């Protein structure tokens, strides 16, 4: 099936209350949805394994906790490893870092979003879900500055609304949607 959308990558961020939403989004995407997805979820710092395994139970796609400089491939979901920032480099590889936490978070959503924005520019979709701190808002601002598409989960639906609301405070999202509408939006891209 020909893909007519302009997007080359999707980044998703979330914290408290976002895990089930992420699972639902990933399990709902059709097999022909080949755009790579990079995911930063705030997670327990010292629990090394489990997240990728949990996500892979419901997703049709390979779920990878990438090694540093691992190439970003279509049809794959990349999850920020525990205690590392995940970024995108100019050569479309994953880049990891142990630099200081941002907004008390490592991995940080801001870090992923800001780096992906500069690489993919207008070909990036950034989605921010439920969460209890402001990580992600600055990253969304940079996504917007670089021409990417900014989507936030409707704060009235989010289990914890601080994170999506913090975006609205500093930048105008392109779309504010509930989870089911986010899924429909993404599915429509490959119809």
């Amino acid at each position, binding site marked *: 099936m020909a893909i007519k959308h302009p997007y080359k990558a999707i980044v998703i961020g979330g914290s408290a209350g976002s895990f089930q939403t992420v699972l639902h989004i990933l399990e709902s995407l059709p097999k022909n949805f080949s755009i790579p997805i990079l995911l930063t979820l705030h997670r327990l710092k010292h629990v090394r394994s489990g997240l990728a395994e949990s996500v892979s139970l419901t997703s049709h796609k390979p779920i990878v906790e990438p090694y*540093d400089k691992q190439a970003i491939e279509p049809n794959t979901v990349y999850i920020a490893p525990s205690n590392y920032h995940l970024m995108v480099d100019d050569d479309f590889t994953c880049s990891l870092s142990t630099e*200081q*936490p*941002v907004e008390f978070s490592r991995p940080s959503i801001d870090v992923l979003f800001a780096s992906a924005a500069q690489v993919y520019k207008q070909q990036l979709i950034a989605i921010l879900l439920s969460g209890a701190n402001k990580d992600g808002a600055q990253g969304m601002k*940079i996504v917007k500055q670089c021409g990417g598409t900014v989507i936030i989960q409707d704060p009235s639906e989010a289990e914890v609304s601080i994170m999506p609301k913090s975006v609205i405070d500093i930048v105008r999202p392109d779309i504010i949607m509930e989870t089911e509408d986010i899924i429909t939006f993404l599915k429509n891209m490959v119809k």
Partner: protein
Amino acid sequence: MHIGLPIYTYQEITELLHAYIPDISYYSKSFVERRFQYVCAKLYIPSIHAFQEKIQEDISFLDIFMHHFTVPVTEMFRDVSVWKALYSKVLPQYRNASNFSIWLPNCSSGEELYSLSIMLQKLSMQNNTTVYASHRSIVGIEAIKKGIYSERNEQLNANNFSKLQLGTNLDNYYTKSFNSLYMNASLLKNVTFMYSTSILQQIPAHVDVVLFRNSLLYFTVHMHEIILANVTKHIKQQGLLILGLQDNNSITVLNDSYKIENKEERIYRKK
């Protein structure tokens, strides 16, 4: 960490720094851009021109720059399972060796060095072990020698340490005063610090173990090969290399020169 569009391009930064830090091009573009910005903000340097003036006024400023440019380690015993493997599998292999040597090519802010030293002391291995600790900054080396750490991470460090179940508490290895932890000076009695002007310089001749975790992250893929080939030259046959859990695992040298000792913990044995 700097979040935002880079104010200065990689080219502008490297043109400025190349004369003073010849290996600046070894680092990845994105790292140079964000780390330069971070250091400027940290040291209250308002512009690239101000940075240049600062170097011209006082060349020793470069050392301070490198101290902050080097990414610190934020906790002791990071990745507890690796330290468990070190304590129970790796270090005991060398307990009865007459001369055992470990090299940390980038001892960063010192937490890995102190973590290792605590284990060596606990295993009564300080007398037969030499630890070589390389660093890009004299200021950085002096800070590690002082061994003063913020109490901010005390709980995190203690939690990591307790998971090792060594039958002792981490606070036996430091004293606490005001908001700081002062590491016991005896921990460094078998440590030789080595100031290096490049990741490829100032290396001990032949060592048994190299602890090189998460340092490659900031270099280009091309340099991964060169740096690791260089490190490999200085590991004894059958010696061990320990990388960070998520370090690049597609480096040719790893396949060519090592067999995997412990896949989970990224421990490799030189063929």
